[in-house]
């Protein structure tokens, strides 16, 4: 299966076309095609994972993989570590230009396999969920077609064997997110959100494209393996790799919703909830993190991660953790709380990559996919069954009685997100923090701990507002149907157990063992599990939950914090500042967009009026003049004159010549004899005289 990994993205891509062309005629309106294709892809991903694990095990116990070629010295150095397991690369030439081959193929290793499982599994659950959630939508079939294309694009990005192919997948993901965020485009707000998401991520994509170009000219190849090997080779040009890393980082910032280009992500909530779940958990935003993980040696060398201190990647991630988490407090829309939470959590992953905690970052991507999908789908379930399609938490409250399954699963997701032992989020987040500390990034360890505190607190607020207190809505809340609750239960189960896979104290380090590449990959230090830090982070989260619960559960009474924002000027100013999302949207929309739009549109109008219209009118006038000149002079005089003149002259000549044609035979004879006489004379003169 490792050699035929292309099937995994191909199936949903085929499903896209099948749904598009035949979906409406099928009994389930095309949903079944998407679900079947995704199920097969999921099964194939599992098979690929098993094959990969076999491959790693075989290399460890057997001939020690490539190690055998390098002799004993290498073996001694690698003792206690895994043998080098080369990724399975299949590539065919797509086209050749100027001697450069543009290949298309697959690059399968542990990271790829892990991503394949996450994407296909979450996609599958989202599809099943959507059959109920989108049941009455007028563009139901188109929705499934777009979802299939979305998953296919993400899978293409994941299996890509070279950066060009990655870029193709990356852009397709962006396009699909545009289609799906603006799925209900009848509302102007939704289509604006879609355009915003598209343009904001495009801003980052420019960076990505430039980064890929720099990498190509540095390395001389687009291949993932070649790029990574080059970055680790002793002769690598550090300055060029730094430039490439910065450009790629801009791409990651755009796609993964990192500060300062995160503003599109909350607006992307305009799309249907399953889309939000897909964007936030399995596709789109993790694309940036995946890129960072895939081309990690480039960043490792470019940003000198080994040296510790501060680098762009860790800094961006750290800032994003905090600003995302703080903003989540002032949201009234449950999906926006989750959106800012995603921004913050992706910040953890980027920071994890930035501090050299590769395994932890990828592990966090893995666990986060499950509990964030769970939370989004739970929020969707709340609006589906509880509030009649509203996401405003002011219309919720007390739903735990009406929607027990949704409540319990949402609670599990929240606890996992908050990093409570022993749920999934605890293991991965703790691993990032421990590694940040042990790699010499103490600042980011503290940032991470503050983030953990904030995360626990805002999730408590969110859970309280949604499920506790009195019901404030105007609908009849009821539990959602099985197609919605079953994916929730599955994801809740995964949110509980997913963390065990790489739980160091239990002796399970499957991610380090199988996911971390051994081929063309820096030697990262893996921190030991640190009990004090783990206890510290859990207790921080617990304290946060306690404080938040105290505040929110008691806030009906006269708590000391009640009405703080009304009473205290500073707090009020802070609240306003947060409400306006640090004024970043104002900066982008009012200052930059309007600033550009105003003068540019005025200039464009002026250019339009004066230059373009002038050119067009001038061209028109000139054409008219040339035309009339041509008509009057050339056509009428020259052409017609020639034709008429010829006819006239012919007539005149005929008139003259008709006199010769007298009809009198003897006159003809006279001409005949005269001509003969002249001829005879001529012969006489020339021959005789």
């Amino acid at each position, binding site marked *: 299966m490792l050699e035929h990994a292309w099937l995994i993205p191909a199936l949903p891509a085929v499903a896209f076309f099948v749904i598009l062309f035949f979906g409406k005629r099928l009994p389930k309106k095309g949903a079944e095609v998407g679900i079947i294709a995704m199920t097969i892809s999921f099964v194939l991903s599992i098979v690929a994972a098993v094959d990969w694990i076999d491959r790693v095990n075989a290399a460890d116990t057997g001939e020690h993989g490539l190690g055998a070629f390098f002799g004993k010295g290498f073996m001694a150095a690698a003792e206690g570590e895994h043998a080098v397991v080369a990724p399975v690369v299949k590539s065919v030439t797509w086209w050749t230009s100027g001697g450069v081959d543009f290949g298309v193929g697959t690059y399968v290793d542990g990271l790829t396999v892990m991503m394949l499982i996450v994407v296909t599994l979450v996609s599958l659950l989202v599809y099943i969920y959507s059959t109920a959630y989108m049941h009455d939508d007028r563009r139901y079939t188109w929705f499934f077609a777009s979802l299939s294309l979305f998953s296919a694009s993400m899978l293409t990005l994941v299996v890509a064997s070279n950066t060009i192919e990655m870029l193709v997948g990356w852009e397709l993901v962006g396009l699909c997110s545009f289609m799906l965020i603006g799925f209900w485009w009848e509302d102007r707000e939704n289509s604006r959100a879609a355009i915003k998401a598209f343009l904001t991520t495009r801003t980052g994509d420019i960076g990505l494209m430039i980064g890929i170009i720099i990498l190509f000219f540095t390395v001389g190849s687009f291949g993932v393996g070649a790029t990574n090997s080059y970055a680790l080779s002793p002769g690598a040009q550090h300055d060029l790799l730094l430039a490439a890393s910065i450009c790629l980082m801009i791409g990651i910032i755009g796609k993964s919703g990192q500060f300062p280009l995160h503003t599109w992500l909350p607006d992307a909530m305009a799309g249907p909830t399953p889309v939000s779940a897909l964007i936030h958990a399995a596709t789109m935003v993790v694309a940036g993190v995946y890129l960072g993980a895939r081309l990690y040696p480039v960043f490792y060398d470019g940003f000198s991660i080994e040296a510790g201190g501060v680098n762009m990647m860790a800094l961006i991630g750290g800032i994003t953790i905090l600003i995302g988490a703080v903003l989540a407090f002032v949201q009234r829309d449950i999906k926006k709380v989750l959106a800012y939470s995603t921004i913050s959590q992706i910040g953890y992953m980027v920071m994890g990559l930035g501090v050299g905690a590769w395994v932890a970052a990828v592990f966090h991507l893995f666990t986060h996919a499950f509990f964030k999908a769970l939370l989004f789908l739970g929020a969707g379930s709340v609006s589906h069954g509880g509030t009649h399609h509203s996401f405003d938490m002011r219309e919720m409250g007390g739903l735990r009685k009406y929607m027990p399954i949704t409540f319990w699963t949402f609670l599990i997701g929240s606890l996992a997100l908050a990093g409570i032992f022993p749920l999934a989020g605890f293991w991965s987040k703790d691993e990032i923090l421990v590694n940040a500390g042990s790699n010499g990034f103490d600042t980011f360890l503290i940032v991470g701990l503050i983030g953990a505190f904030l995360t626990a607190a805002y999730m408590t607020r969110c859970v309280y507002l949604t499920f506790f207190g009195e019901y404030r809505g105007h609908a009849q809340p009821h539990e959602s149907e099985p197609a919605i609750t079953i994916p929730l239960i599955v994801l809740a189960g995964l949110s509980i157990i997913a963390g065990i896979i790489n739980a160091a104290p239990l002796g399970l380090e499957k991610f380090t063992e199988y996911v971390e590449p051994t081929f063309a990959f820096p030697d990262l230090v893996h921190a030991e599990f640190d009990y004090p830090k783990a206890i510290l982070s859990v207790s921080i989260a617990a304290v946060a939950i306690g404080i938040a619960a105290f505040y929110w559960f008691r806030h009906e009474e006269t708590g000391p914090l009640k009405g703080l924002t009304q009473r205290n000027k500073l707090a009020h100013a802070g609240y306003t500042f947060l409400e306006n999302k640090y004024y970043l949207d104002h900066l982008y929309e009012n200052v930059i967009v309007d600033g550009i739009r105003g003068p540019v549109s005025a200039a464009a109008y002026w250019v339009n009026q004066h230059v373009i219209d002038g050119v067009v009118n001038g061209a028109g006038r000139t054409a008219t003049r040339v035309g009339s000149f041509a008509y009057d002079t050339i056509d009428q005089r020259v052409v017609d004159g020639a034709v008429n003149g010829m006819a006239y002259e012919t007539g005149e000549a005929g008139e003259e010549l008709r006199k010769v044609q007298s009809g009198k035979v*003897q006159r003809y004879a006279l001409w005949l004899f005269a001509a003969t006489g002249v001829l005879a004379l001529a012969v006489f003169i020339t021959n005789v005289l």
Partner: protein
Amino acid sequence: MDINQFLILSAFLFCVGIYGVLARRNGVLVLMSIELMLNAVSINLIAFSAFGREVAGQVFALFVITIAAAEVGVGLAIVLLIYRNLSSPDLDEVDQLKG
């Protein structure tokens, strides 16, 4: 005998014929003038044949006589038809092909 005498006779006859063809208005006389011209040519041929000891010229003269007979036959038929149509043998009136 000198060949010039025959040539002068021949030329005279030919000129009479030309005059007749160009100047006479009666179709029959035009035909007769043509006969004169033909005979003038025949005299020329025979004269050169006799003086040049070459028999081909006389044979040619015989052909001319034969053709002339046929030509007169056709020519008289044409003149007869003209006369029937126009009740006159005057060639000046035969100008239907005037341009």
